[in-house]
């Protein structure tokens, strides 16, 4: 009996972990790619564009302070990055030779914490990590998203694309169905955007806080009653890479304001 049940168990795992991704998935034509900010009300868009009123700048300012402050056991970020990091965030996620994997901006910042500052990594969604990420992302404000998915990043890109195109959750919906096939339509009070990550970390009115792209992805997965992935999960980083590649050329907007 035990043996039999064990065999059943093994036979089932592949059936659960490899759900079918969509075949012949459509894509948004390059000239139709638009930022989520065009679906906002005029007031929310004005709030985003006003550096004094946009609450996201509270985190940017905190991030700037942390960037210049030496931690207990190492040197401040600014010691190595005196000239700033203009344009860098627009190229993330990116394959990192040393880590041997694709890192998003949060992962890259934590990599510096650990290897160059001998400090423990900051927890995902901590005030510190959000603030420094927002500060670095904001230095690419207006720069075109330009990630590279060639070479070792290719497989990760494809894993992210498959996640995007796979139906999941009790509602059995994929990211693709909402954000590629139905953008511009109304889902109750929301207008579906194309689901780009160019505004993140972003201040969401619903959160009353700045939040990472992974927090947004978790909200979308929860929305279809799927089990969300943990913060910082490599598969979410892969989705992030796919989203960025899909929006290459779009202007960076962090800290964006969203509903």
């Amino acid at each position, binding site marked *: 009996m035990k043996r039999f049940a064990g065999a059943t168990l093994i036979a089932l795992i592949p059936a659960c972990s490899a759900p079918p991704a969509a075949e012949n998935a459509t894509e948004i034509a390059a000239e139709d790619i638009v930022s989520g900010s065009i679906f906002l009300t005029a007031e929310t868009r004005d709030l985003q564009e006003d550096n004094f009123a946009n609450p996201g700048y509270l985190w940017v300012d905190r991030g700037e302070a942390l960037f210049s402050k030496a931690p207990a056991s190492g040197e401040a970020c600014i010691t190595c990055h005196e000239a700033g990091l203009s344009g860098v965030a627009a190229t993330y996620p990116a394959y990192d030779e040393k880590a041997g994997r694709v890192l998003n901006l949060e992962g890259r910042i934590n990599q510096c914490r650990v290897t160059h500052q001998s400090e423990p990594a900051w927890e995902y969604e901590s005030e510190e990590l959000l603030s420094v990420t927002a500060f670095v992302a904001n230095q690419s404000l207006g720069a075109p998203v330009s990630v590279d998915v060639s070479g070792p990043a290719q497989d990760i890109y494809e894993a992210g694309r498959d996640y995007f195109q796979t139906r*999941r959750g009790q509602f059995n919906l994929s990211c693709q169905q909402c954000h590629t096939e139905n953008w511009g*339509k109304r889902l109750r009070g929301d207008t579906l955007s194309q689901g780009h990550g160019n505004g993140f970390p972003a201040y969401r009115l619903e959160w009353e806080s700045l939040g990472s792209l992974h927090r947004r992805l978790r909200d979308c997965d929860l929305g279809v009653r799927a089990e969300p992935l943990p913060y910082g999960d490599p598969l979410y980083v892969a989705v992030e890479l796919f989203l960025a590649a899909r929006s290459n050329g779009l202007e960076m907007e962090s800290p964006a304001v969203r509903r």
Partner: protein
Amino acid sequence: MSRVGILAVLIISACGAQEAPLIRANTILGDAITQPLTETAGDTIRGEQLFVSRNEGHCILCHQVDGLDAEFQGDVGPDLTLVGDRLSAGQLRLRIADYQLVQPGALMPSYYRIHDLHQVGEAYSGESVLSAQQVEDIVAYLVERRASGDDA
């Protein structure tokens, strides 16, 4: 049952890949389930509540019915103001229960289905979105969405 056996059952219900369909193939006639799913007749008023309520059917996420007392109705799916003129109770029943049986690849979620779903949230695993009775209530509500309002 052995520990492993219990674990196997848990995994089956968590992924739904091996669940038996709630709707048996022999109850489907063409594009309809002609027989009600329950013995108690659907309740129109309850159906309207389910159609609107965020924690239950929440159909207005994607659909609109003119005259409903609900802000911000969706337009991802078709307008259902006059759906009773287009579809019979049996056709409505199948579409709400599992639209993907009518049209593979349909976007509309399947409200009375537990099989072949993936990464379902723990809190919802092994459960359909709506109960059979709730499906009947919504069918009763929608079949009356007609131009004339009285019996067709």
